[in-house]
């Protein structure tokens, strides 16, 4: 979706948060799929990007998402010890922890970027996490920081 459209939709009156979710191929994406086939209801505000592993997440992805108008970002991988690549999520965990700290210190609401683990059997957990993230971002309102204005 062009970022102008994202930007204009963010400004529309009936504002709904737009969450970008990065899910790892092996656990969380399957977990989201399970939530779907189990017909568990969760807010439709997430757009899912499948990545090979949570270790694939470059912090730049998260910043770019915010810059292009996402109101929140969710990153989910396999539980520690369950990574398909043995330790991708463990190596990522340190980066994630520091990313949260960076958000806090730069003055960007840390709730805009959330990290979690969801396994392939946890459809219910995925739905509950999405519910929680959407509620948190709803409370914060539209993302205005870091968003690049395209009007110029």
């Amino acid at each position, binding site marked *: 979706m062009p970022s102008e459209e994202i930007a204009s939709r963010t400004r529309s009156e009936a504002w709904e948060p737009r969450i970008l979710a990065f899910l790892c191929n092996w656990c969380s994406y399957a977990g989201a799929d399970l939530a779907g086939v189990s017909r568990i209801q969760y807010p439709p505000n997430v757009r899912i990007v499948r990545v090979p592993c949570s270790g694939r997440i470059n*912090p730049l992805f998260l910043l770019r998402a915010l810059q292009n108008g996402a109101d929140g970002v969710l990153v989910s991988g396999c539980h520690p010890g369950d990574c398909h690549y043995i330790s991708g999520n463990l190596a990522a965990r340190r980066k994630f922890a520091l*990313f949260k700290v960076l958000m806090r210190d730069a003055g960007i609401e840390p709730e805009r970027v959330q990290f*979690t683990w969801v396994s392939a059997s946890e459809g219910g957990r995925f739905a509950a996490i999405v519910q929680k993230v959407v509620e948190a971002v709803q409370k914060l309102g539209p993302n205005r920081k870091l968003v690049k204005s395209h009007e110029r």
Partner: protein
Amino acid sequence: MSANREIEARLRETAGKLLAEKKVGLFIGYEKASLPFRTTPLFLSRAEEAERLAWNPFCTANLSVYLPRLFQAPADARAAKAAPPPPTIGVALKGCDARSVVALLQERQVRRENLVLVGIACQGLVDRRKAEKALGTHEALGAGEDGRGNIRAVVEDGTEVTLRREEVLAEACLECRSPAPSLYDFLLGTPVEAKGAARRRKDGLESQPLEARWARFQEAVSGCIRCNACRQVCPMCYCKTCLFDQTRPRWIGAGTDISDVSIYHLVRALHLAGRCIGCGACERACPMGIDVRLLERKLSAEVEKLYGYRPGEAAEAVPVLSCFAMNDPQDFLTEP
């Protein structure tokens, strides 16, 4: 003879000897520059030119920044085979510069066996901007050091002005925890006690509300002209291709749009998390006087708190973001 003059003499002698005996093919040090409060990097390959070397409180550059590229092998395997053997390099290092060499060794960017490290027990360096500010309306024509380590400057009307040492020391030097090199082949001068251990720049970021922190960050980076000087002088920014230079894809706009500028500084802080050794070269290089280490300082403190790690302390240590522990804290995770 003041301590620094003695170090300078010994530096010339050591470098000259290394070059004459062919122990090194290249010696990197400092040379007097044409402007006061400044020095310029000097690349020496002939022993008889060792007299050009200088050591004074204005030798602010972190010379380890040149090392990774001198050891860079061609990416192509056949070209790498045909390439000349890596050079042997002698380099003058202050405490902070030695830390960055250790960090570069940790990340395998330099070859210890090809390096001759001439460590200098640093007494702290002068921040050019602070000195110029302290002179007020006067313009310095020349500058030097007096016997007690204070800075003497000759100004335009020919009078001499003495600047108190504490007033003009660089911020990074006031905070320095290890002014003497930890890794060296030769050590010049007597190590001084680290006075900076207790001092931390108080920016009170933690106690401020979110919006105030955001305003502070935006105010800090809004002056940025994206000249990339902070990246160029950083010894840890050695990527052959920097993501900020890439145009396909263009990850981040190259202009001074506040959003792009903010992301530049956020990414820079993240890339240096757990790697920055705090030499302050970026701060001194910034033409706009931005506090470019604002976020990075916080991240470093957090890395130390979370993982008990300080970069540049042990060449054998694995960089903090290249390893993990099963019990790393993860209380930042979202739970349903």
